[in-house]
């Protein structure tokens, strides 16, 4: 069991972290204090052309080593320690650091893949973990309940137009900073409630596309799968969702011919990318995606037999996606609309405003 919550303003208006903190804290019963985290989009408008690398350092002395490594690959525009305060229950296992970097000119036409390779390289050294690597966004996570993690990172100082939050109850690996959600790669972040029974299949499939899984936890594969399907293979969000939670063959057979051809091709090709086991996920993406206008998206999706809850709501230009309706109601008393998406069907909110 875990708690997930996503809030997005579709006009790109920034709002404070207090809403997401209050909402996620209401679901503390779904987590056990062994992991909490947030992703925020629209954080760094003044540096929005730079990749913002949030890196957890096992030892603050590693900072120089990481800096040297980064310098070999990218130009560092600015770096600083991410401000934290002491929170009694959170062990100070890591020091979070942020780097704003850009890619040397000769690599700019493949900058995204270049950054992913770099992040995977740093992660595989052990000691330093790149927890987010997108532009104008960042991930904050640690051991603790979500509200404690928010306190640790002084999140009340930040404003964003799209927030994700997660409270963890680890079941397949120990609780540690790196294992907390969101999992993030470039502009994609994901929070996940569930346990992926197809992890081994997904992981080995991703490895053959060059991804390295280094967080020892199943949820990580979701972020990479989404990156592969949506960014690299340019599948529209709706069809990428059909890959993660495909319709049953019986349903496929009843589809109109052209649709059937597409879905069959997707299932045959991306069978190993199918995510099995119970899941409710919210995926945030900070940039425009294939087939989607605007500057960002938030996608809510559950497994195809809906073994985990997912509730969505809307109020004016704000969309909420959560494990529980109560979490939404805690921050939005009277939504215009509340609904439970059907099993395996994505709910997509698009950010159309300037961000």
């Amino acid at each position, binding site marked *: 069991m875990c708690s997930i919550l996503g809030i997005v303003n579709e006009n790109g208006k920034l709002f404070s972290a207090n809403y997401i903190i209050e909402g996620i804290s209401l679901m503390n019963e779904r987590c056990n204090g062994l992991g909490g985290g947030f992703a925020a989009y629209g954080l760094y408008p003044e540096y929005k052309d730079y990749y913002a690398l949030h890196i957890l350092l096992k030892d603050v002395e590693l900072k120089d080593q990481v800096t040297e490594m980064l310098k070999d690959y990218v130009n560092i525009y600015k770096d600083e320690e991410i401000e934290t305060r002491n929170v009694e229950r959170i062990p100070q296992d890591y020091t979070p650091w942020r780097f704003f970097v850009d890619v040397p000119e000769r690599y700019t036409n493949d900058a995204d893949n270049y950054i992913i390779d770099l992040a995977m390289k740093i992660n595989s050294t052990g000691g330093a973990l790149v927890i987010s690597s997108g532009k104008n966004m960042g991930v904050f996570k640690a051991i603790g309940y979500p509200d404690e993690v928010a306190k640790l990172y002084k999140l009340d100082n930040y404003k964003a137009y799209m927030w994700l939050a997660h409270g963890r109850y680890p*079941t*397949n690996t120990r609780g540690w900073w790196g294992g907390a959600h969101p999992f993030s790669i470039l502009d994609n972040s994901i929070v996940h409630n*569930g*346990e992926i*029974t*197809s*992890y*081994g*299949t997904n*992981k*080995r*499939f991703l*490895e*053959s596309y060059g991804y390295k899984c280094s967080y020892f936890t199943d949820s990580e594969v979701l972020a990479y799968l989404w990156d592969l399907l949506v960014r*690299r*293979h*340019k*599948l*529209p969000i709706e*069809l990428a969702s059909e890959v993660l939670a*495909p319709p*049953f*063959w*019986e349903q496929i057979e009843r589809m109109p011919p*052209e649709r059937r*051809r*597409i879905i069959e*091709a*997707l*299932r*045959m*090709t*991306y*069978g*190993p990318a*199918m*995510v*099995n*086991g*119970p899941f409710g996920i919210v995926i945030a993406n900070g940039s425009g995606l294939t*087939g989607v206008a605007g500057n960002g998206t938030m996608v809510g999706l559950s497994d*195809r*037999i809906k*073994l985990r809850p997912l509730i969505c709501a809307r109020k004016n230009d704000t969309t909420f996606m959560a494990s529980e309706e109560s979490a939404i109601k805690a921050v939005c008393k009277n939504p215009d609309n509340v609904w439970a998406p059907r099993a395996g069907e994505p709910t997509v909110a698009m950010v159309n405003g300037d961000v």
Partner: protein
Amino acid sequence: MEMYSSVPEFRVVIDRQACRLCKRCIENCSFGALEWRDNKVKAFDDRCVACQRCVSMCPEDAIALRRMPSVMSAHPIWTENARRDVFTQSRTGAILLASTGNELHERVIFDNLLLDACQVTNPAIDPLREPIELRTYIGRKPRFVELEELGDSVRLKTELSPALRLEIPIMIAQMSYGAISLEAHEALARAAVMRGTTMGSGEGGLHKKLYPYADHIIVQVASGRFGVHPAYLKAGAAVEVKIGQGAKPGIGGHLPGTKITEEISEARMIPIGADAISPAPHHDIYSIEDLAQLVNSLKEATRYKKPVLVKIAAVHNVAAISSGICRAGADAIVIDGFRAGTGATPKVIRDNVGIPIELALASVDQRLREEGIRNETSIIASGTIRNSGDVAKAIALGADAVKIGTAALIALGCTVCKRCYTGKCAWGIATQEPELRSRLDPVEGAQRVSNLLLAWSIELKEILGAAGINSIESLRGNRDRLRGYGLDHTTLEILGVQPAGS
């Protein structure tokens, strides 16, 4: 000179009080082990192969077979079998023939692999309440799907290679008409149709009676090229090139002329009574590029509408060979492990050449992944699949599907007496004698094989459901859901499996 080798392996025990002298056992014994002498049934133990036919047919249950009570002085190295073989060869001066699979290596790695199940954190899925899918496509898959936007709609731009659609990931292996009877062949074909899977024609062509089932038959092209003609290739669901088989890697085949009846001669396209000799290599394949040419010409001949499979025996260098086969254009690679069965093979080859399917499968899957070409070919594992547990484990190790041979024959009545090569199969399976063939009813046989496949499918769904998986593709290559128990470190490493408890 009298030698011990004449002492039989089994003793036929007849309860004289129960026997009502109906002679049914005598009629049924195709090995001549029972005869009518002095107004009673006399058993010739040395001819008995323990096929169980007389036991089953006796209306009074008056016959029992025992292992010969006489024992030899024990020796751990010079086992009875080892001594028997020496006796036999000192008498005949010939190669020892054998049937079925490897008998020397009793250990089966599948038995040391344990499957996983969900507890608490993850709900197990009840297959009686929720759908669990077993459908499998065999063939080349693209690396990604490309779509084309046309106004409001999207269209598929990627063209998919022809694939074999299986409703269950269990196929019936290649067994030739000639090695087995027409009735057995028909039973297997009918069962494949009933369960939405395929059977293999084997290398003996296809009897015209089987053409109605051909869309569920993978037609084989082996080194003898028996029965290969355009209509045969086009009729099949797919074409399979046999390079080798697990029971006799590197060894050809020999169907004696006495078995080439009129019907077999027609299917194999050779004269009646002529020996059907399959050379050890294909005479047009002396290296990998020759295989590529054959694969391509078979695709050309079938107008690129059928997947082409290539079957090899699991030998030491199987991973590198498979990579070559994949790059030669094979849509699927069939890997036949060293325990795979056969109708006839030199015993020394059967027992000593090749490697276990579990290790071969794991290393091929891993190698193709490392080379980034795993999607370009399917892997089919065969040789030791005895139950649905073996099927699940093979798939978790990386197989797309498995093939069963011996298990399907047992479903038809085979008792594994290991005398296929004599052509006297008392159950009408591995024989061409009309009287023996008439003992096997293809319709009833098909029902039994179909039942077996159905039972395994239901069990597979239980296994998947317990593991919290509702579609077979999420078990494929999912070595995380396996644990090794009692396996050494190196074996585990090759299998890519963690030890139990870790």
